[in-house]
C-alpha cells in the first residue's frame, strides 16, 4: 500500500480565486495553517469534485515544500479539511 497519512482535520487555508480555471478549478490554495505550522503551497497538482446531497466538495492536491497535501473544500460551508499528507518520494 502507499505511505499516505490520513489526517482528516479541520484547517485554515489561504487561497485565491481566479476566473480562469486551471486543472478544472478556479481555487488555488497558497498556504495552510495546520497544527500550528504554516505550510506554503506552490502548485495545484490535481482537483476533483464530488457531491454529498446538495453540497459540493472539492478535492485539491497541492504541492508543499516537503510533501503533497490533499485538501477538501466544502463550497456550501466554506470550510477546509486536510484529508491526506502524501510523501513526495
Amino acid at each position: 500500500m502507499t505511505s499516505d497519512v490520513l489526517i482528516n482535520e479541520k484547517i485554515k487555508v489561504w487561497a485565491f480565486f481566479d476566473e480562469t480555471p486551471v486543472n478544472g478549478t478556479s481555487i488555488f490554495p497558497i498556504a495552510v495553517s495546520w497544527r500550528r505550522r504554516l505550510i506554503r503551497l506552490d502548485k495545484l497538482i490535481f482537483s476533483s469534485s464530488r457531491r454529498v446531497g446538495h453540497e459540493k466538495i472539492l478535492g485539491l492536491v497541492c504541492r508543499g515544500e516537503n510533501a503533497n497535501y490533499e485538501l477538501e473544500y466544502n463550497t456550501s460551508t466554506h470550510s477546509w479539511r486536510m484529508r491526506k499528507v502524501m510523501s513526495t518520494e
Partner: protein
Amino acid sequence: MESQRIILHVDLNSFFATAEQQANPKLRGKPVGIIKATGRTCLIATSVEAKKLGIKTGMSVHEAKKNYAKIILVPADFDKYEDITFRFINICKTYSPVCEVFSLDECFIDITESERLFGGFLNIAFEIKERLRSEVGEWMSCSIGISHNRLLAKLGGSLVKYDGLIYIDKKSVFEVLDKCELTGVLGLGHGLGRHLGTLGIDNFPKLRNCPLPYLISNFGPFWGPHLYNLARGIDGSPVNSFHSLADAKSVGRTYTTHRNLYKKEEIERLIRNLCEEAAAKARRMKMAGRYVGIALRGAENHFWRHITLKHYLDDGRDLFDICLRLTETWRGEYVRFCGITLSMLTKKEYLPTPLLSSDLRREKLIDAMDKVNLVWGDYAVYPAQLLGTNIIRPEVNGYFGDKTFRLNFLRSSG
C-alpha cells in the same frame, strides 16, 4: 455516405491508475495496481508500468506480487474517476453534439459536420489531448483513433496505446485489420471467435475469403452479414449521442462482500441495502419495474432466481420482500456475492396512482425520504434494518452501465 463520415474514438490510457498517478505524483512512473478497497485481493486496473511487467487487470494481488513484489496497491476512488469522466466528456462534446459516451473512459465523436469549424480532424485530436492535460492534469493521456466508422476508429485507438494517434483511411483498412486478432475488434467477442475457430477461421484474411452464404449458413441471418462486413471494415452503425440515449431498461446493483456472510440477518441486510439502492435509482429516473431478479454466490453455490410481477414497484421494501421470497429455496452455506435487478422498467407517469390510503401514505413517506437524501446525500435517511451496518453506497462502475442515469445532467445541460 460512409466515406464522408469522420469518427474519433478517444480512450483514456489506463484510466483508474493514471488518475491516481495524477492525484499523487509519487506514484508516477511506478507499477500501480488499483484494488476496489483496502483488503481486497483483485486488481481492477493497472498502470502502464505494471502492464509492462505483465501485471494485468483481473489478476489477484497474490499473482501480481509474483510478477513484481513491490507493486503499489491503491484503493479505488470512484468519485474521482466519475469527476474526471465528466470533465473528459465535457471536452469531447465541445467538438460535436454527436458524442457517444461508450464507457467511463471512452468516447466516440462524430465530427463529420463540425470538423471544418475546428480546422480539421487532426487539429481536434491534438486539441483534445492538450485540453485533457491542461483541464484534468498533466499526467493524463489518451489514445485517439480516427476513421470513417466506429469499428475502425475503435480499432485504431486500441492499436496505438499510450498517448497515440492514428488515422485509418479507406486504403489501409485491410492492412490494419490483417494485423489484428479476430477477437480484438468491436463486435467480435470470444463466443463468435470460438465458433469461427471451429471452422478453421482464425484471422481476417480467412474470414474475408468466406462467401456471404457460407457465413449465413453457419452464423445465421444476423451474425453472418455482420461478420462479412466486419472482415471488410464496413460498419454503418451511428454514433449514439448522449442526447438521444434511450430510457434505461433495468436498474440493479451487485456487491462482493469483504468476508463470507454466514448469518441470516447479515445476508438479509446486504439484500436490503442493494434493494434500496436499485429502487432509489429507479425512482430518481421516475421509473418503476416489474421484473425482479436476485443472484447469490457462495463457494460453489451459484443461485439465481427471478420473477415477473403483474404490478410495477419502485419501493426498496417491496423489492426486498420479493427477493426474500425468491431466496426461500436457497440452501447455501454462506454468501460472498449478491446482485439485485429491477427490470422491465416503465415511466412512473404511465402508472395509476395508488388507491388505498396506506399505499398513498407509503408513497409520501418514500417521497419525503428521497427529498431528504437528495439534499443531505445518499442514505442520510435509511431503513432501520440497516442500522449498525457499514452501508454500501452507490458508485460508478468501469463500464458505465448506468450511464442513462448518470448522464442525465449532461442531457439537461445540452
